[in-house]
């Protein structure tokens, strides 16, 4: 088993205090092979609206893997998106262009960055609900996970 430490930087900005960003470390144990998805959670959303799902993608294999497809029973359309700072006092969101996962690495989908975007929700998602999300990888194949709706 290969254990790595990934510094998870909680991007905390302050316009009034100018404080240093808080940092926390999260320890992951990579699987011996293939892909494992951990700590999945989702945002609340209204019916016909949108939501986002966050998780950590652990690629334990010696090869790069690629995300080929996404689906969920609660959404008509599912895509991998990323939020980015445009640098002109505006935040933008775009479809992630190259959803690949490097060998023996952890890719974190987290608020303000990479996320699975659920669109055309067929029901409202409120705190405590559990939803399914299926990610299909080129090498690891289809993996379905359960994500709990939270408002942390």
């Amino acid at each position, binding site marked *: 088993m290969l254990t790595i430490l990934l510094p998870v930087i909680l991007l*905390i900005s302050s*316009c009034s*205090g100018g404080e240093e960003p808080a940092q926390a470390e999260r320890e992951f144990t990579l699987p011996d092979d293939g892909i494992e998805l951990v700590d999945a959670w989702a*945002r609340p*959303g209204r019916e016909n609206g*949108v939501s986002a799902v966050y998780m950590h993608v652990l690629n334990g294999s010696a090869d790069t893997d690629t995300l080929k497809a996404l689906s969920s029973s609660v959404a008509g359309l599912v895509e991998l998106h990323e939020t980015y700072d445009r640098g002109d006092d*505006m935040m933008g969101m775009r479809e992630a262009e190259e959803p690949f996962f490097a060998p023996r690495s952890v890719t974190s989908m987290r*608020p303000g960055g990479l*996320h699975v975007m659920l669109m055309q929700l067929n029901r409202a998602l409120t705190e405590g609900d559990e939803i399914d999300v299926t990610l299909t990888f080129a090498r690891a194949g289809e993996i379905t996970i359960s994500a709990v709706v939270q408002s942390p």
Partner: protein
Amino acid sequence: MLPFQTFLKLFLLIFLVCAFTISCSSPGLDDYSDVRFELTNQNGETVVFPDDFEGSPLVMGFIYTNCPDICSFITVNVGKVYEEMENPGDTQFALVTFDPERDTPEVLKQYAAAFEMDKPPFQFLTADTETISAFMERVSVRTQESYSRDSEDGDRMYFINHSDKILLIDQRSRLIFDYGGSMTPVNIIIEDLEKLLKNRFCSLFSCLLYC
């Protein structure tokens, strides 16, 4: 002629009042007291900014409901400021959409319900496109359509690049702080808001003096 001792006491009193007033008064980053925007909340009621908020501090965020990432954090942060304050008093909380085309009062009500915020003191506000455009310009919230696509059922889906903001406005409609909306720790906003609530007496006092 006033006796010297009385004159000295009077001078000291005036000095203390001036010092107190100066220390209490906050110049603010902006002043919205001279504007008037007619908005509609999630219940279809008319809300006039800033008139209907005057007299209470206001925490105001800016969102569009088709944004699941940044805007949901702005929404949750506004909710958490209220939930985590020991004594929010009569502080008001509002989230204003910059996507009035899609964010009707009905849509905002559903959105508020999903976040368990369709209840006082939260208001989710929209208006006609022209009013929202002027309002966003006045509060320095920038927006720009990013990319769009047609869904299978023929609907056009579009996304918006936007400022990431929460504002703290005092009871006299002055902008006190301008925060990064999604990532600012809630406790920072709470600390500022509590100072504002504590200084309310000061502000009232200075207002009376200036008036």
